């Protein structure tokens, strides 16, 4: 068992890092806010942490700087885009993600341009990452339940009805977008501090696709979907090493299949299968959660 961990440490680290990134998009999508700001703040977080470390800050401070910067940027973006919705919001936030990469590529004195930053001191351990991944999961689990959780679901299902029953809609949207942005930056910062290099090619359209496919394949309705999706998509290239060249095709096709045939993702699909199986005593979990 320990051998297996040692052999697959990098893979597990990647799963942990991208689980948080996927959760960043999932938080917004679950609330019906079609904001993909997390892919942009992922890059901002990665670069901010790398630059702060390079300036001699301790890792914890570097991480805080990255998160604070991302919180400011995503809050500002949320304020700017509060009047738009749906597809237009998706397009505006994808534009933001693309622009972040353009700025990074052009700001050579700070970001190293197209080559990126490397030899970033490794400053997060696997244990540290594990603690953060679990902590994020616990926070998201608590938020999905309870009053805020129901407010978020109301926001997704019917904005007007949500407002009518007292959900502060604009505030909730700013909050959701900021949390999404901060989670993105958290993942990006850990990535830079763990794998000690970051380049502009890692962001942009490619990152948006990767993170969204994780969320969609795993299941959009819960943080668990994001985590499962991240694990599946990171494992996939390992299993299909011989088809490495066709990774894009495999996860692109998977994404289309899931969106068309199983819109609730792998987790939703499993739940359906469980409902079809012979009943045990007591209400199934699906019923309990849907009521």
């Amino acid at each position, binding site marked *: 068992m320990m051998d297996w961990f040692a052999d697959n440490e990098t893979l597990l680290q990647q799963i942990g890092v991208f689980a948080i990134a996927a959760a960043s998009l999932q938080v917004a999508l679950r609330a019906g806010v079609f904001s993909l700001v997390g892919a942009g703040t992922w890059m901002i977080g990665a670069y901010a942490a790398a630059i702060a470390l390079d300036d001699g800050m301790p890792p914890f401070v570097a991480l805080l700087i990255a998160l604070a910067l991302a919180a400011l940027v995503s809050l500002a973006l949320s304020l700017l885009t509060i009047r738009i919705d749906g597809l237009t919001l998706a397009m505006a936030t994808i534009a933001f993600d693309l622009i972040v990469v*353009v700025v990074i590529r052009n700001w050579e004195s700070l970001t190293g341009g197209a080559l990126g930053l490397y030899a970033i001191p490794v400053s997060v351990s696997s244990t540290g990452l594990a603690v953060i991944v679990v902590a994020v999961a616990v926070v998201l689990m608590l938020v999905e339940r309870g009053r805020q959780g129901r407010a978020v679901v109301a926001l997704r299902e019917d904005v007007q009805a949500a407002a009518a029953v007292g959900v502060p809609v604009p505030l909730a949207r700013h909050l959701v977008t900021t949390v999404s942005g901060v989670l993105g930056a958290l993942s990006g910062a850990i990535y830079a501090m763990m794998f000690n290099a970051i380049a502009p090619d890692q962001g942009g359209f490619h990152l948006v696709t990767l993170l969204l496919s994780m969320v969609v394949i795993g299941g959009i309705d819960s943080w668990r979907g994001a985590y499962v999706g991240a694990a599946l998509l990171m494992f996939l290239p390992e299993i299909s090493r011989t088809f490495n060249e066709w990774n894009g095709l495999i996860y692109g096709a998977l994404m289309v299949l899931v*969106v068309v045939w199983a819109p609730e993702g792998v987790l939703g699909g499993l739940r359906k299968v469980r409902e079809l199986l012979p009943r045990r005593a007591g209400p199934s979990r699906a019923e309990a959660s849907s009521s």
Partner: protein
Amino acid sequence: MTQQLINAIVLGSLYSLFSLGLTLVWGVANVLNLAHGALFLSGALAAFVVAEAVAVPFVVMLPLVALVGAGLAALMDVVAFRPIARRAATESRREMAVLLASLGLAAVVTNVAEVVTEHQIKRIPGLLDVESYKVAGLTVTNVQLMIVALGIGLTVAVSLWVKRSSSGRALRAVAYDPRIAPLFGINSSRLSRGTIMLSGAVAGIAGLLLAIHLSGFDANFGESLLLKAFVAVIVGGIGSVIGTAVAAYGLALIETMLVAYGPADARDAVAFGLIMLVLILRPQGLLGVKTSERA
């Protein structure tokens, strides 16, 4: 100065050709097709594959890539957009699902292109020799002339079709309300598929032209244009053909002038600044109308 103006018009024509389909499909079928870059890519890719095998004259290649683009777009509609529309519970869920599926489709096409081009920049062999003409001290190439002619020609043609023809009016009715239009005998599903195929055909042609213009293409070359197209569509107004074209030429002009006379680094920031400005001040776009009256 005049030379810069020519460059701006060529660039604007390319932006316009690329954005035309995106804005139409969004306006009519309410689909934000992020695989539009993949349709664009398919034009260049198909031309490359064909030209590697046999020598085909340019006049044959042009309709051929239009067919490939239209066919691929139809395929996307059949395997993803249509089945999603049939199943989705609400309109906002459908919008989101279609966007996600289009991202998946884009990944598939890009991957195929990566393998075919071996991750390199490829030149389409022996299709068209770039010839330069000097007129009154200005240099233009035959490829530039063709881009401008097709850019302006197709934009005007599509715009006239939407505004004046009876099928164009039907199209606007579908954009206005896809459920009521059929009551007036309009086959709205056929029209929206037709629109998606038209957008694919134009994107395919645009892809081929850009690949010749830049004398090469790679698997990612549609993506850089996606941001410009976002600007054109948002600034011009979703579904507005003329608005999108005006915005495309305007953006190209600003960018060209910045590169020539101002800080070139600011070029891409202009794109984002414009999107944000319009979204804050006039979310329906400069020439756009309210959501309910699109296209």
